[in-house]
């Protein structure tokens, strides 16, 4: 620190390729490939285009929410109300459909309701400064509660026939519309998080919100936008799911919030904020989808599958740490 000669600073210590080689995503990709191979060996039905296409429905909707949730968690917040937003969005669309709304209007209503729910969460968190985990535990009951109030023990099922496209349509051959949408969202969120100023500020906020604010980032505004995005993606997922089910009941998508969070964490996003990547979440979505589908083909009951997911969630973090501890 004491001599005064100026020095040349290299840009990078390691080449980007070297970094990639040590990355979490690569590890996860290896896991995904291993599961894929294991599945192909374990079940004769696995390697079949239609079956694989069907399998994507196990994760596409959850993954779409997971992208937005990943950004939110990277920024140090969380939204546990996403599944409840799906219920409310679906109810709103059902009510509109019952009143005779056409498909375009339904989509607008769905996205609008999602945005409104996101805005409500965002306002409570950024304006009133409440912890997001508590706020969204509350809105989780509130949103679904409202849809119970509206629907009671009834169901909406009068969706226009074209509406079925979002959840049941195919773009070409076995490629479902949902899968294409999933791919587009993945790309969009990749660019948003890793290639834009907005994404950079998300990382900065998650690392140290105070320092980010002191660097001139509008922390409240960014967080609010993230809640909006999460609401929006819940709306998108709600459209797909409602279309796939062809009907709405208030209990729709219950328990999804924890599955979405699991997907995000499995994708290597730090639950404490500040780090993570969209490719990681994409691979995690495939991993979860492949595991549930593969075990499903072996007729393993769902509850036993969830043990696998739980073990995976803990071991993806635990095993590298144990390995490091064991080596020294």
């Amino acid at each position, binding site marked *: 620190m004491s001599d005064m000669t100026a020095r040349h600073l290299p840009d990078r210590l390691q080449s980007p390729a070297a970094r990639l080689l040590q990355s979490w995503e690569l590890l996860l990709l290896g896991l995904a490939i291993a599961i894929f191979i294991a599945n192909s060996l374990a079940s004769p039905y696995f390697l079949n285009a239609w079956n694989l296409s069907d399998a994507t429905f196990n994760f596409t909707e959850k993954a779409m929410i997971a992208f937005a949730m990943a950004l939110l968690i990277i920024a140090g917040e969380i939204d546990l109300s996403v599944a409840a937003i799906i219920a409310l969005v679906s109810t709103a669309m059902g009510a509109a459909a019952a009143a005779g709304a056409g498909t375009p209007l339904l989509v607008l209503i769905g996205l609008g309701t999602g945005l409104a729910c996101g805005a409500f969460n965002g306002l409570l968190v950024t304006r*009133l400064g409440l912890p997001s985990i*508590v*706020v969204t535990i*509350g809105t989780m009951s*509130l949103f679904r509660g409202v849809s*119970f109030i509206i629907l009671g023990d009834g169901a909406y099922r009068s969706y226009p026939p074209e509406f079925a496209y979002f959840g049941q349509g195919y773009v070409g051959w076995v490629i479902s519309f949902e899968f294409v949408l999933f791919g587009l969202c993945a790309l969009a969120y990749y660019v948003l998080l890793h290639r834009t100023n907005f994404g950079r500020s998300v990382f900065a906020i998650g690392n140290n919100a105070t320092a980010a604010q002191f660097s001139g980032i509008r922390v409240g505004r960014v967080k609010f936008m993230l809640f909006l995005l999460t609401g929006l993606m819940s709306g998108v997922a709600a459209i797909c799911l409602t279309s796939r089910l062809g009907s709405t009941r208030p209990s729709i998508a219950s328990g999804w919030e924890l599955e979405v969070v699991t997907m995000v964490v499995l994708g290597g996003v730090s639950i404490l904020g500040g780090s993570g990547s969209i490719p990681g979440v994409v691979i995690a979505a495939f991993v979860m989808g492949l595991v549930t589908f593969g075990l499903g083909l072996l007729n393993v009951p769902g509850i036993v599958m969830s*043990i696998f997911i739980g073990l995976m969630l803990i071991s993806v973090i635990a095993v590298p740490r144990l390995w490091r501890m064991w080596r020294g």
Partner: protein
Amino acid sequence: MKRLLTSRETMLSGAILLLLALTASRFPGFIAPANLVAVFTDTSPLLILALGQTVVILTRCIDLSVAANLALSGMVCAMLNAAMPGIPVALILALAVLLGAVMGAINGALVWKLAIPPIVVTLGTMTIYRGIIFLISDGAWVNAHEMSAAFTGLPRARILGLPVLAWFGIASALLIWLMVTRTPLGRAFYAVGGNPHAAVYTGIDVGRTQFWAFTISGALAGLAGYLWVARYSVAYVDIAGGFELEVVAACVIGGISIAGGAGTILGTILGALFLGIIKNALPVVDVSPFWQMAISGAAIIIAVTLNTRSARAKGRIILRRAQAAQTEGAPA
């Protein structure tokens, strides 16, 4: 004096009284002493879990596995009782607490030794514990007639007019209160949650303290597991499903700061009672069952808003003038 009046606990007590008054205005029988005892008894499992959760949240952690822990402990007790009705209930009870504590300790060890974030650990163990119930029970129920009379009778036996279940609630509250206010470990919970970095400097092992918090939470979940199964005389995979969030909600309503290090046991008790009363009042006042969920959601949001408002740092005051105005406004 002013501090006392504006404290979270006072406000919450006020809210509870208001709730009781509102319920009573539509259904007077609700505040009959016998019914209040029934409501308290019904709230006891929630209270017991919330006490454990409080300790965990105080240390800046969260335990999402409590409901699964309860269900697994309960199932083990029930299966044991069904297989060997001769085992004394006291032994089963001790086993439930022990089993729960072990499950809690697993959470705690993962948080302590591997430094995995608590929410991830307990999200994982929550599904694992539930899954294990399925594996050991094969998805089957354990029913009332398979349980011994002593097993199902204990929680509802009355001592001094109060069911044993309620006594367990009271005893747990007292014990946790004593521990939290009067033992070094209890104070360490506050220290670790309030300023983990500083805790190290005072010789407190942060990880170990969190480990004990999880273990205590687990032990209480185990206790609640036996009580639950015995009370409803049935055990199956899904019992108390989703209860973990209600437990967290009780703590939050009671003013336990999710950021750790702040909150009181009295607050937790009031928070649990508040939710318990809502749950018991809604079926008797003529509110559509469909409203129930929205009402409890709104209650959580309102409570946390008020708590955060009252807890917001008053900020130090530099200006002499403002300081003077402040002291006049609040004569000590």
